[in-house]
């Protein structure tokens, strides 16, 4: 299973969500995407976006001022 990292630090919502959305559009189902963000809003927004668009959040964690959301890309379209 391939793993990809996305740097969305210093972006405020919804930009991290848009970056995740655009990145996922280029990834195959099953790929794991780790989004590293600094806006705490991503902890609710990215999982919400994933729920409605068919992707799975595997993990969310915060590390000092960073918020990390790990996603398994679903079938999408």
């Amino acid at each position, binding site marked *: 299973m391939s793993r990809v990292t996305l740097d969305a630090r210093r972006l405020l919502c919804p930009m991290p969500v848009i970056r995740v959305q655009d990145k996922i559009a280029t990834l195959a189902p099953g790929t794991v995407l780790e989004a590293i963000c600094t806006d705490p*809003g991503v902890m609710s927004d990215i999982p919400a976006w994933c729920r409605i668009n068919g992707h799975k959040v595997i993990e969310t964690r915060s590390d000092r001022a960073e918020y990390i959301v790990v996603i398994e890309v679903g079938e999408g379209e």
Partner: protein
Amino acid sequence: MTEQRKAVALISGGLDSLLAAKVIQEQGIHVEGINFYTGFCVEGHTHAIRKKDQKKSKRNNALWVAEQLGIKLHIVDIVEEYKDIVFNPKHGYGANLNPCLDCKIFMVSKALDWIRKKGFDFIITGEVIGQRPMSQRKETMPVVSGESGAEDLLLRPLCAKNLPQTLPEREGWVARGGLYDFSGRSRKPQMALAAKFGFEDYAQPAGGCCFLTDAQYSVKLADLWRARGSKQYEMDDIMLLKVGRHLRPAPHYKVIIAREEGEGNFLQGYRKQFVSIKTISHAGPLALIDGEPGAADIELAARLVARYSQGRDADLVELEVMDREGTSRTLKVEPIKPHEIPQEWHI
């Protein structure tokens, strides 16, 4: 078997777009949502920046609406393209720097491009005749559908019965009898429809969800344009207009002073792009200087920062001034007295 028709709904996150999409879903149409990010959206940003707001639960209303409806939501970044709408609105500004009619036309035209690319059949908006004084009037409805190029592919389910039939109605994809005839500024019909559908916890934006409708924000943006001699902005500019106390002692520079810790942390990220000032001898805010300040300007800016620090009543306050290259020096200044700050410096 009849082909299931597909519509894209412009989802702002407010009640009207929620209801419009739901009305069409109820007619068996496959609906997906589209949300355009202009950079000026109010919700979230001040929340993310200000420390006192970070503890409050926060949601993105467009995503919340999509979840309530069980539809996909496509969020589209239009920050760059949108600048032309803000700079040169063909139909002018509203009460502030809000180009609402041009904005609506632009978003519908973007939605039209999207449905053509994705093979969808028509577009839904939550517009209601008379709901907004600039962009949602009887006369502007055909302007939006005409100038966007959407024409009769644009269906407004909440007020469709007050408007000519659209293609989805004529083709029988949507029954006109299942649409509504809302008009005016009253929210009661929408609230009643929300209750009928079982929606309770919907967003109640007052005057829309765009910073450009905010008088104070518009004053700051107009000041920025005046200072630069032309209408222009970058994403960082529009973010910084949302943060801190802005004072312009002279046309060639202004001082942005954090009002609390969260704003200070946010401004910290801009220290390589601006001259910055931070108090050393007393607790105090971080400030940025936007423009090209000379030595005397920096000293005056330091006196202003000292004024908003814990040392405001001290004889002298020591501060660190850092240039864009990261070179710092210290400065001792007398905090400026409140009566020495002309009201017109406050933007």
